[in-house]
């Protein structure tokens, strides 16, 4: 599903974010990207959703070469991905329903289809009763659940999560992890960047460790 070959990435000449990074992620895999701050986890995710281009190397996602992809095709790649961020990235002036409907609207889906899918997605994360609330009227955990609903509403092939539990307490973290587990069980490949060792211990999956932009460990406990 995801293949990276000798990927190098640097933001400036001196600061290298990734060095000779290679990785293969089969379809349906669940892996943690872990390592200290500045290890290159977020850069790797940005490379995968085409926000930045590698200086060298090749990246293939579901057979598409992201490295050679023209910018007008990037939206097509992103439609196959679901992305979850630490800061949720919900639009504060839009209701939960409108926030979750966004990816479907961008794909030009019909209104009745959008209504039905958004309701199902919000029901799946337990927020069906708060359709018309605004993000700031919800707790952090609820906001992250809404962000996950938005990421999953298009039935993506891959779910990318960048420190999704970074701002949440332990109980809420467990709820969020259950949602990721569920998505993975339904066939979605999940890449979760975190430095939270507790969730890696409680939900053991393949672990890819990075340090200073290099792959230092890749094992499944």
């Amino acid at each position: 599903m995801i293949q990276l070959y000798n990927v190098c990435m640097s933001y400036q000449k001196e600061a290298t974010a990734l060095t000779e990074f290679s990785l293969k992620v089969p379809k349906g895999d669940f892996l943690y990207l872990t390592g200290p701050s500045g290890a290159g986890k977020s850069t790797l995710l940005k490379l995968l959703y085409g926000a930045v281009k590698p200086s060298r190397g090749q990246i293939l996602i579901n057979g598409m070469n992201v490295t050679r992809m023209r910018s007008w095709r990037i939206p097509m790649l992103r439609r196959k991905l679901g992305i979850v961020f630490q800061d949720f990235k919900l639009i504060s002036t839009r209701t939960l329903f409108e926030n979750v409907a966004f990816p479907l609207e961008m794909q030009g889906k019909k209104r009745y289809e959008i209504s039905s899918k958004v309701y199902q997605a919000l029901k799946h994360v337990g927020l069906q009763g708060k359709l018309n609330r605004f993000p700031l009227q919800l707790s952090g955990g609820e906001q992250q659940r809404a962000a996950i609903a938005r990421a999953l509403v298009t039935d993506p092939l891959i779910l990318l999560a960048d420190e999704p539990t970074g701002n949440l307490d332990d109980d809420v973290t467990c709820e969020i992890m259950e949602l990721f587990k569920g998505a993975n069980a339904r066939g979605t490949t999940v890449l979760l960047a975190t430095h939270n060792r507790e969730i890696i211990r409680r939900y053991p999956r393949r672990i890819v460790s990075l340090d200073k932009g290099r792959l230092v460990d890749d094992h499944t406990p």
Partner: protein
Amino acid sequence: MLQSIGYFTRRVGRNLRQTPVLCSAAIGTVAVALMIIGFFAIVVINVQQVAQQWSREIQVVAYFDTVPDSDKVQQWKTKLEAMAEIERVQFVSRDQAFKRFKARLGDDADLLDGVGTDFLPASLEIVLFEDHRNKIGVESVVRQLKQIPELADVSYEPEWLERFDAFVGLLKVAGIVFGGFLLFAALFIVSNTIKLTLYARREEIEIMTLVGGTPLFIKMPFLIEGALQGVVGGVLALAGVWMIFTLVLQEGLYGILMVTGTDGILFLSPPQQWAMLSCGLILGLIGSVLSLRKFVRI
């Protein structure tokens, strides 16, 4: 397609509802910018009208030593009126010239008492088309007239023509420079105001790009919104200019231009009013395009 139009319309409506202050600011900016351009246009149009009136004075007169017979006059008239530069030709007999002179003297007309009515020469007064009422046009006509021996005694005031040409040239340059500057300033201000409205929605735009929105799909509602704000701004500007024209400008400008012998002060003609609305639409659209370039990056 229809579905997309429906989506864009809903989004534009929602954006306008959700950020009324920013939308009003953008509309207000377009309106004020266009009002300034509108006032400038009214001044230019009326000064141009004065110049046009003055240009009616530009004519070439061919004098005759001896009065030609009417067949000959008719023959010349036909020949001259066939020339591209000439609008019409009028024969002025000695009697007509005398009557005109007498009328021009007004109260002093008695100076002519006892003078014969045939001391002024007969002439052909040649009026040029407006496009040719300049030094080049007049000199071209004079050159052609001088080829006809009977019409060789020509009068056309070259110094006045030079001054008139310089005035019209200055008017054109001033119009282009100031008009261009005002348009550029309006575009700059409108673009920055729209940039502010987009800045307030930057997180929304960022999320649109992250969830797979194509640049055109993301930009379209903002472009429609910009165009709409531009048109509404244009309508408000037109109403504002008309109101101030009626209340203040008409009288004020007439006071200034009255000495030039103008008939009255003109407002923008219907095509110029449409041009002003189009200008609003284009300002809103270009302002949005310029601002969106910075915000929509895949």
